[in-house]
């Protein structure tokens, strides 16, 4: 557990060093703070498996890369843009997808024991949780742009996509559904 805390702090520190836009970095990391607070408060009552904490770590690295460069300027995204001929830097979409996977794993491990009867109800619940958090994130983004148009626009990062919020949520939904499918298959085999 101590190793986990040290490595997460290290990842966050590296991301902060020389961040392109410190205000945007702070906003992106407010989300990280909420997530870490949840994991810290539930570390005894709802502990995750090693795979669960690993998925959180991988997601943290991806998100901190986005926070460091501000999402729409991540080099990997530019490279993908030129290779795939996309109209925008799609790094944020990749992270929304990864977020769907991470949240599904965390939600599954944290709340499985609170559900009994039909496992279908729990699949529905996990799907709803991921979609709910995605929707909340999009709503908060919209408020950020209303409160602070400059940094808010960078934080929102629609990059000219009229259906940006729907596409973001669809990526998370895809990550969630694929993870639930994987869980369902592994449960059947077990």
């Amino acid at each position, binding site marked *: 557990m101590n190793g986990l805390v040290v490595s997460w702090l290290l990842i966050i520190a590296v991301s902060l060093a020389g961040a392109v836009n410190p205000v945007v970095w702070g906003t992106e990391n407010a989300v990280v703070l909420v997530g870490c607070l949840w994991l810290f408060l539930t570390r005894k009552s709802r502990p995750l498996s090693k795979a669960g904490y690993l998925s959180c770590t991988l997601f943290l690295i991806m998100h901190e890369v986005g926070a460091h460069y501000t999402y729409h300027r991540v080099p990997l995204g530019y490279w993908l843009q030129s290779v795939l001929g996309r109209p925008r830097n799609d790094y944020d979409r990749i992270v929304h997808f990864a977020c769907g996977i991470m949240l599904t794993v965390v939600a599954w491990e944290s709340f499985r024991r609170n559900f009994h009867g039909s496992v279908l109800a729990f699949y529905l619940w996990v799907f*709803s*949780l991921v*979609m*709910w958090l995605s929707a909340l994130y999009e709503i908060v983004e919209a408020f950020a742009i209303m409160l602070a148009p400059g940094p808010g626009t960078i934080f929102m990062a629609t990059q000219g996509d009229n*259906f940006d919020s*729907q596409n973001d949520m669809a990526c998370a939904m895809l990550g969630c559904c694929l993870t639930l499918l994987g869980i369902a298959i592994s449960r059947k085999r077990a």
Partner: protein
Amino acid sequence: MPRFTVSWVRPTISAVFVALWVASAFHTVDPGVWLLENVLTFLAVGWVVATRKALPLSDASYFLIAVFLLMHEVGAHYTYEKVPFGFWIQPHFKLLRNDYDRMVHFCFGLLLALPCYESMRRFIDGPRWLILATPLMILTGFSAFYEIAEAYANLVLAPYTAAAYLSLQGDPFDSQNDMASAVAGSIIALAIIGVVERRR
């Protein structure tokens, strides 16, 4: 689990609902839009009928579901952006657009919280906050799913960006406002449910 169940209530709700539902199909502003909007109604009615034995709800829940679906049918009949009630309230609240769709998004959270709560609580064995938060998650989650489905349906059915954008009525934060309306509606309903359950 169902409370306040009276024998004549469900047949009455069903009969009135079906009569008004059928009526909404006549003289619609745009039959294509009516059909598209009613995909949702057919799914919802199918779900309610299919789960009436396995997940029985209270009369109050069936009533709330019927009221919500009929509000949706009004939107389907006139197409949402042309509902007369929306035009009527527009000057009173100085609104920039016909906000009838926002009201229905709000009522999605407000009216369906109780049915959702009754459906899900039997599966959950945990703290009260988890049971109360579940309908909020499910209703907001489905709002998000609806926004995605709506956007992609628009892109497929009206490939011209201008036409696709029309349904947003010029609101760049349309999807966020729709989802926030559902969040507000379900929080209000769940606060009421929480208080009533505590008094019981």
